[in-house]
């Protein structure tokens, strides 16, 4: 009896260990692997650098007796090039400053300045593996209504599906039941982005026009068609275009601008598309 109890406890401990290993391994990402790689690098690199220095010293002995005049001439040329590069650098810095100013002009806050928004915090997340909804801490008492658009600093989050007096349920764009008509900002082609079961950080873009040129890195925005989402809200960028035998079936994977795993604060747009 005592032996059975003992082996039972051992079994539970082993199961817990297996579970922890499974969780750690399946959730580890490349950065963590790189961390281990970095440790090895720190240990190995000084030795490797020492050997490389020695090798260079030995193999470069013949150049030690190079002509002094040639070196002087080279030095002058390099000084000249250096001053030219310094000039270019100053010009680039001016361009960079201009670029920063332009970026500010197209900043998302400016972009969404036309909308009346209510800030809210995410207070509850979906507990299912098959859907993706969140609950926010504003409701009908704050003027929240069904169908209102929800955004975050970086882009579109979803829309309100139901509201109580002080909470509202938001169906996110990564939910499998969500489909948003959107446009590729560079070409203005209309596509439909839908949530998938595979990845809660990406969307599947379908109904891509056959003549559309879709490139990796293209930005995707809401089209304003459909009556729920206003036009021009950033959704994400195209990660990959998957070509199929039939061009009408091709689709693209869109990385969402919003990180739904770290979504804590949102803005609810209270004026409708037409207003």
């Amino acid at each position: 009896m005592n032996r059975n109890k003992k082996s039972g406890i051992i079994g539970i401990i082993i199961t817990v260990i297996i579970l922890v290993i499974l969780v750690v391994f399946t959730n580890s990402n490349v950065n963590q692997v790189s961390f281990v790689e970095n440790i090895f690098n720190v240990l190995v690199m000084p030795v490797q650098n020492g050997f490389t220095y020695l090798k260079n010293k030995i193999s470069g002995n013949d150049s030690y007796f190079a002509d002094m005049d040639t070196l002087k001439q080279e030095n002058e040329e390099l000084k000249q090039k250096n001053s030219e590069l310094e000039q270019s650098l100053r010009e680039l810095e001016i361009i960079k400053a201009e670029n920063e100013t332009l970026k500010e002009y197209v900043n998302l806050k400016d972009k969404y300045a036309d909308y009346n928004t209510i800030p809210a915090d995410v207070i509850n997340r979906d507990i299912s593996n098959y859907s993706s909804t969140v609950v926010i801490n504003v409701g009908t008492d704050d003027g929240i209504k069904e169908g209102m658009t929800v955004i975050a600093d970086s882009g579109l989050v979803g829309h309100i599906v139901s509201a109580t007096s002080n909470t509202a349920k938001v169906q996110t764009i990564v939910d499998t039941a969500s489909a948003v008509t959107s446009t590729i900002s560079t070409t203005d082609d209309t596509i439909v982005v839908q949530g998938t079961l595979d990845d809660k950080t990406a969307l599947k873009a379908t109904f891509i026009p056959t003549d559309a040129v879709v490139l990796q890195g293209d930005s995707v925005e809401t089209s304003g068609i459909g009556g729920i989402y206003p036009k021009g809200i950033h959704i994400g960028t195209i990660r990959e275009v998957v070509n199929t035998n039939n061009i009408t079936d091709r689709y693209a994977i869109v990385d969402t601008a919003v990180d739904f795993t770290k979504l804590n604060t949102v803005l609810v747009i209270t004026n409708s598309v037409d207003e």
Partner: protein
Amino acid sequence: MRDLKKVIAVILLIVSFFIIYFLQSNFFTWFTISKVQPNLFVIFILFVGLFTGKKLGLILGIIFGFYLDVVIGRQIGVSGIMLGIIGLAGEYLDKNFSKESKITIILMIIGSTLIYEIGSYVFSLITLDINIEILSFMKILFIETLYNVIITIIIYPLIQKLGHLLEEIFKTRNILTRYF
């Protein structure tokens, strides 16, 4: 005295549900296997159905499921119906199989998880405009079932102890243990 015990037991079950809900919506959102969470509610309702009988299993299954649907679900009623079915099935499983065997409990958990998730997914496919992703669904379902099994193995001694306490309160008849 017995009625008072029953009331206290039901209150404790409700408290347990909220503890499980807290774990599911916090701890298990990051303690995942390949980004897949377990479904503790299935384990809990099956446990209630097995040890307290179909009445309480069905009622608590429907109430808790309905609560989940209202608070965070996409459709009202799906979780209520599915958890109700599992609560109801608990007693039938108890009559036909032994709860004393770890293997039987694990098989019951596998069956209940599959029934709950497949039922919910089919219901979603019918009522919502979603794409059918059989492979992805099966992958998630497999990991979720495995996760539920691992949790069941870990908490099995607790299930047994608390289960027998509940059985003493709720089941008046002495049920002979039948081995699978």
